[in-house]
């Protein structure tokens, strides 16, 4: 979960969720089985359960986050994406979501493989380290970037495996994962019509959402 606090869209239940989470939610079909890995305070899961009637589960590394979710009536367990996805059987879910969490995992390659094993489809959102503002801060300022999408200073961030959109698309190809859909988001969270493999996406997209599938 990021500390992104940009304005978000209100939901049918009234509680607003972040704009990028709304785009993730839009990819989920109603009444499907969903696992949200790194579900934080449960806001996305809660939206999916109420607005789309999904059979939703969650996994969250912080116990405080888990307890907050269970208090809201969500099925959430404490767990670590790096070690605990192995317990789920193949194809157990229609959608497995990993939003703004891949960069905090110790083994992003292993996590992606597991996501696409336990879910028929995976929805992964990442900040784009190739975003022009990030490149500019490093190139001209000589400083590790601090942006809306990457708001924490280098010594405080959980992000240990950042990548660019291009890196991510390349890794998916290497792992044999098909990108069924992708949304490249600009600095206000609007999806732009860029080819995910192209230069424009890698330069102008602040973050991206991918719908993945095995093969």
């Amino acid at each position, binding site marked *: 979960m990021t500390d992104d606090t940009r304005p978000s869209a209100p939901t049918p239940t009234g509680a607003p969720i972040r704009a990028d989470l709304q785009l993730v939610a839009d990819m989920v079909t109603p009444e499907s*089985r969903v696992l949200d890995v790194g579900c934080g305070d449960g806001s996305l899961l809660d939206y999916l359960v109420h607005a789309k009637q999904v059979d939703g589960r969650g996994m969250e590394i912080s116990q405080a986050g*888990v*307890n907050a979710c*269970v208090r809201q009536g969500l*099925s959430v367990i*404490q767990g670590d994406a790096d070690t605990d996805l192995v317990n789920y059987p193949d194809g157990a879910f229609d959608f497995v979501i990993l939003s703004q969490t891949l960069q905090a995992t110790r083994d992003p390659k292993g996590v992606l493989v597991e996501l696409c094993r336990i879910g028929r489809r995976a929805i992964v959102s990442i900040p784009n380290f190739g975003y022009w503002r990030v490149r500019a801060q490093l190139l001209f300022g000589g400083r590790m970037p601090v942006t809306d999408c990457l708001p924490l200073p280098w010594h405080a961030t959980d992000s240990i495996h950042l990548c660019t959109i291009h890196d991510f698309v390349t890794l998916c190809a290497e792992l044999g994962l098909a990108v069924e859909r992708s949304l490249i988001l600009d600095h206000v969270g609007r999806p732009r019509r860029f080819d995910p493999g192209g230069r424009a996406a890698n330069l102008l997209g602040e973050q991206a959402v991918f719908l993945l599938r095995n093969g």
Partner: protein
Amino acid sequence: MHQNGHLRIDSSRLPGHRLDVGEDAPLRLDCGIDFAPFTIAYQTYGKLNADRSNAILVCHALTGDQFLLESPLAPDRPGWWHQIAGPGKPLDTDRYFLICVNVLGGCMGTTGPREMDPRTGKPYGLGYPVITIADMVRAQARVVDHLGIDQLFCVIGGSMGGMQTLEWAASYPERVFAAVPIATTARHSAQNIAFHESGRQAIMADPDWCGGDYLNQDRHPHRGLAVARMVAHVTYLSEPSLHRKFGRRLQDRATVTYGFEADFQVESYLRHQGSTFVDRFDANSYLYITRAMDYFDLAAEHGGVLANAFRGTPTRFCLVSFTSDWLYPTAESRTVVQALNAVAARVSFVEIETDGGHDAFLLDEPELKATLNGFLDGCAAARGLAETPR
């Protein structure tokens, strides 16, 4: 000379309900015996709704009983789960119908080793069959049947009550809408068995135990039973909380006495725990019920694979463990969670930060209450149970 206290009380004089199981419908026990006739004692709170869809079965622990809210033997004290059950509490008696059954082998009204064996006219003693957690659950199912309830809204319990909850979910998945096993395990570890065996040996070493025939001989192994209770009680507390409550402080004296009196406050506390326990609990029941806990191994009942116990289950689970519970540590709950994940069951798992040790489920723990409220509210909404104004 120790008086046997309540043990002389006719258990039919305790409040609550009774179900008689006759010889026409014996209970087949795991040990192979068809057990009948016997009586099952239970208590209920709240009102069963017209659909019979709001029933919650509460499973009590080793030395608990069916009286959640009141203590018939100690009217000045509230029941063992008054923190969790009652009007406006997470197990809200204004909204749910609570059932608590005295376990098979117990001594608070359900036929146990202190009750009369109809074949001999004397107390069963060690003639009572060796019962298991699964046997306890089968007896509870008779009560649920008798009340005309097809599906329980929830089965919930802590410690041994959590074992019964897991057994219910594994044996009767269609009859359990939601299951809340608290501070529990899917099988007793070697350390758990070791502690229980120490307690049993203390009882059996008491010369007044008389090979289990003490009631017949008007004796009472109160010393052995008190020691068993002292040992067990230490396992229910955490070291930090013992240190906070007692430390090395002396009991009403300025210096140690160079003797074997209760010099330390913690000694005095344990002696008190032991001596009050023997007034309310039967020594043979302690043997039988600890044995049932030691024999409990849910994976073994299902080919050695715990996940098999829950395959295809529709039940919603919420497991709760406590950070300072070293008797049934969080790792045990995590094992059950992993088994449930392996069969894609709907499971929540919360570990609560507390220094209350294993006994924390009996104490005032706000996080436990918030968790139960959240989980039960979510389940009630899913089941279409009407809200009661709080």
